[in-house]
């Protein structure tokens, strides 16, 4: 039997995997690494190093950035220098201790020691100024937006240096949601102009420094962005929803990039879920997408589900499909 790591490589290189890669099994996420918080505890509110207020009101399932006039960090994109100040990235050594211990304990022949970075550059722009201001600024104030993105990219590169020095990761799991369920947020042209150059620098830097696999999370439609994903160095697009035609994407781009997802949270991860419903969707995804360049997975951006048990049920269903489809 191949190790998880070998099996992953066979899958994404079009070789001979001996089973499906089962969701996030090949990634050991080092979540203890110090970082700016973008989430908070239920019922609480925090302000992070960027000045972004994050609130988790009672009765809600998660935290949310606060963007009323009093809380929005970036009030005028043309004056971004006045409002945006990146937090320091040189965390004291003791903040790294736990993360380093975790990384050291991983059997790297079996799994990838994985740095986990979120939010991404696009997300950071809308955390700072709200989604609508952010999206309109790409069109209305492109120069200022370019400057801001360069500044945020520089911050990410500084943080990346810290991660590499402390953890020597061999994979990166990086979030940046680029779309809704049925469309990308930006046109491909806008994406190419603003987002692609930033990620060429960021992912290029990780790859120059020992990171072998880049897994990018965007649980959305994004078929129109795949050529740029390849160009920026993404090996696996995690979160690919079945609103994309995944079998066609595999046919067109397999070998250059792999697709992880295909099991839509909306269809399996809801209050009345059952293991049978999960099985049905896993089976469909595995049958349609096949054994190469595809990793069956819920579209959620981590090894979790909104309703307890759904993630595990999907893992079991995937094992069953491996038994069925691999000899």
């Amino acid at each position: 039997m191949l190790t998880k790591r070998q099996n992953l490589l066979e899958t994404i290189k079009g070789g001979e995997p001996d089973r499906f890669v089962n969701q996030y099994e090949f990634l050991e996420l080092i979540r203890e690494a110090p970082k700016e918080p973008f989430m908070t505890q239920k019922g609480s509110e925090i302000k992070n190093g960027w000045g972004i207020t994050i609130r988790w009101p009672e009765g809600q399932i998660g935290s949310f950035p606060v963007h009323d006039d009093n809380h929005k960090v970036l009030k005028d994109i043309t004056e971004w220098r006045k409002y945006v100040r990146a937090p320091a990235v040189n965390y004291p050594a003791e903040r790294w201790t736990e993360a380093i211990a975790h990384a050291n304990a991983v059997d790297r022949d079996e799994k990838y020691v994985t740095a986990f970075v979120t939010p991404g550059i696009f997300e950071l722009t809308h955390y700072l100024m709200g989604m609508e201001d952010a999206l309109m600024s790409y069109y209305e104030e492109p120069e200022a937006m370019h400057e801001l993105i360069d500044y945020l990219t520089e911050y990410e590169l500084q943080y990346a240096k810290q991660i590499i020095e402390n953890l020597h990761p061999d994979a990166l799991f990086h979030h940046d949601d680029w779309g809704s369920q049925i469309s990308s947020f930006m046109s491909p042209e806008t994406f190419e102009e603003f987002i692609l150059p930033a990620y060429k620098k960021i992912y290029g830097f990780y790859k120059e420094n020992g990171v072998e696999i880049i897994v990018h999370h965007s649980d959305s439609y994004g078929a129109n962005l795949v050529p740029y994903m390849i160009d920026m160095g993404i090996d696996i697009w995690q979160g690919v929803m079945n609103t994309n035609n995944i079998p066609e994407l595999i046919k067109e781009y397999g070998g250059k990039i792999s697709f992880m997802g295909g099991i839509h949270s909306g269809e399996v991860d809801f209050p009345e879920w059952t293991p049978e419903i999960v099985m049905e969707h896993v089976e469909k995804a595995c049958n349609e997408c096949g054994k190469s360049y595809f990793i069956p997975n819920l579209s959620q951006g981590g090894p979790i589900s909104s309703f307890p048990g759904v993630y595990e049920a999907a893992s079991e269903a995937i094992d069953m499909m491996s038994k069925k489809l691999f000899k």
Partner: protein
Amino acid sequence: MSKIEEVKVLVETGKSKKVAAAVQEALDAGDKAQDILDAMIASMGVVGDKFSSGEIFVPEMLIAAKAMSKGVEVLKPVMAGDGSSSLGTCIMGTIAGDLHDIGKNLVVMMLESAGFDMVDLGVDVPAERFVEAAKENNNVVLVACSGLLTTTMPALKEAVQTVKAALPDMKVIVGGAPVTQEYADEIGADGYAPDAGSSASKAKVIIGA
């Protein structure tokens, strides 16, 4: 190009800084306020269709809506008191337990540009609040509920059923990523649209306009 044509192009291409002046010029040239408004509504219809078909994206839609609102500001004083173009009032909000609002805001813009008077209740709106708002406001013809989370699908159902129980004749439209036509039927909503572009035409059908 006539002045009205110019306004149309400026709205469609989202030139919010130039629309107000162009609307004023159209008025000065003798165009009727109602005709200018209708032209802008038609432009937003085009924008909505292009969004539905994937030809344009959220930012283009936002800047077009912003441009239209700049134009409407110029028309408002001229048209004050003249409610002839309104399709009626629509109450809209994101349902309880959910804070996502981008999709809801786009739908508000599209319905507004189609001629509805919009009352936006914001996010995390309890079921009863929709009913209260429908009673408090004049000429309410439609309640629109948005929900983006599978965890709050029951809240969507509750919102629809609470409105229907209190106001049996009220029309309700629902939408949001996890919502489907089947689900909308199941919970007793009058309609569903998959995106903001098609929400306006669907809303008009539902209220029989």
